[in-house]
């Protein structure tokens, strides 16, 4: 029994658990919008777009997380502005911006000689290295994202479900969409320590896709996804301690396992509507 509680004895593990759970929750909630709007590609793009920000911060000895955040927000706004042009579709805009940012990141990194260790952390996460400052940043940013999703729930709901209606109500659809992209960018930034930019798409998409198989409403999807995300964060990290594997990978694999279980459960017991005469 004592062995099973071992991970909780260490401060660094407690910090890691807090980070993993918070990231699991925030990613799943904001990821729900991405799943219903089929924006998985966008998540991947923004995750890779952090690279030049990280590289610049690294070269000048600045705060890496802040660098990542600025880079992903700039790319989010860039995609939003570019896809507003009639000739350019959104996925084209994403493709252009994300590969450009990635190329810029690689170019900058190739100028650094001693980058290997720190920058692999960006790609694959290093939740055990989360400092007290990091955890504060993750908790505060995560709380802001969740608050924004709650306060502007109706706006995001209408814009993602029926943008035409949002326009007829004279809402600023462009601004609301850009706001959503910025929230996604912030979420990705706080996930870098935990799961890394290479795997963050899984945390955005998988729990939300899992929840969507058994929920009817947007907010119940978000709540269920948050539960799955938090549980994946916690148990993935917990398992990685004993199995001695990469924590980010373990978290994503647990989330995928939940998806597979629910998927087959639904196949075996399909959802049926009660017969209603109407």
């Amino acid at each position, binding site marked *: 029994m004592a062995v099973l509680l071992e991970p909780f004895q260490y401060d660094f593990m407690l910090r890691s658990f807090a980070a993993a759970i918070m990231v699991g929750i925030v990613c799943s909630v904001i990821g729900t919008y991405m799943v219903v709007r089929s924006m998985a590609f966008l998540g991947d793009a923004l995750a890779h777009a952090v690279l030049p920000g990280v590289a610049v911060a690294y070269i000048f000895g600045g705060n890496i997380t802040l660098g990542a955040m600025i880079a992903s927000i700039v790319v989010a706004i860039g995609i939003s502005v570019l896809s507003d042009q009639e000739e350019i579709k959104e996925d084209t805009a994403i493709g252009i911006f994300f590969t450009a940012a990635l190329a810029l990141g690689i170019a900058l990194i190739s100028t650094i000689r001693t980058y290997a260790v720190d920058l692999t952390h960006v790609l694959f996460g290093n939740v055990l290295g989360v400092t007290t400052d990091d955890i504060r940043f993750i908790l505060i940013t995560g709380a802001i994202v969740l608050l924004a999703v709650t306060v502007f729930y109706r706006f995001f*709901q209408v814009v*993602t479900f029926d943008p035409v209606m949002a326009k007829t109500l004279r809402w600023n659809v462009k601004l609301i969409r850009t706001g959503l992209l910025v929230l996604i960018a912030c979420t990705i930034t706080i996930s870098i320590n935990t799961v890394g930019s290479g795997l963050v798409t899984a945390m955005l998409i998988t729990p939300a896709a899992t929840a969507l198989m058994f929920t009817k*409403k947007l907010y119940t*999807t978000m709540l269920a996804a948050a539960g799955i995300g938090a549980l994946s964060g916690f148990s993935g990290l917990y398992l990685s301690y004993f199995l001695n594997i990469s924590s980010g990978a373990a978290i994503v694999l647990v989330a995928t396992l939940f998806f597979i279980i629910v998927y087959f459960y639904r196949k075996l017991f399909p959802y049926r509507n009660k017969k209603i005469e109407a």
Partner: protein
Amino acid sequence: MNNDLSQMPIIQIEGADLGYRTDAEPALKDITISFYPGDMVAVIGPNGAGKSTMMKSIVGLIPPLKGEINVHGKLHGAHPDCVSYIPQRESIDWNYPITVREVVMMGRYGKIPFYKNPSEKDRKTVEDALKRMEITALADRKIRDCSGGQQQRVFLARSLAQEPHILLMDEPFNAVDLATEKIILDNLRVFKERHVTTLVATHDLSLVSENFEKVLLLNKRIIAYGNREEVLTDKKLQLAYGKKAIYF
């Protein structure tokens, strides 16, 4: 009093060219027309005649390339909530996690400040709209799990809940069952009694001749507008549809 109001046009389009692009031919050229409170108008014409463009322009989705569109005597854009638009089915994401009741509640969103929850009145309006469309039993069902006709009713219920002055419907009778068709037509009469101006784009000429008093015939311009007996003549229909037109 009511009489005075109904003599003021609610929608006034003056010398407008309507369309998406400035560098191409406008979809509709040189449009001048007025609609009055309580008008129930069928908008007909061949594919590509500009029916959708006309609707989208009135609701403000496409600004006019030339000329003016006034609603309630104010420039296009000044009225966020008084025009309700039911788009063609293709523009909706039917897989979205949302229930029938939530979709209908969206009709109230223009009236609820974003920091407030829906009031008792909002909820009552929504329940009334569900009842009118005979979809109360479906209220907690996911929109995806409704039939095409039921989905069309959900969107009409949303428009009812919005309590608009102008209702624009783009092809509401496409692919719906007879029961839905009847419910839609019955409720269009309810809208008319409430002095709502209704424009309905449709292909179904026999349905038009039986249910609409006024008909607007389009083909890249206004071919004819007036009472159905004046508009639904062989000569005018041929002008719009070409020689092949067979009047039901």
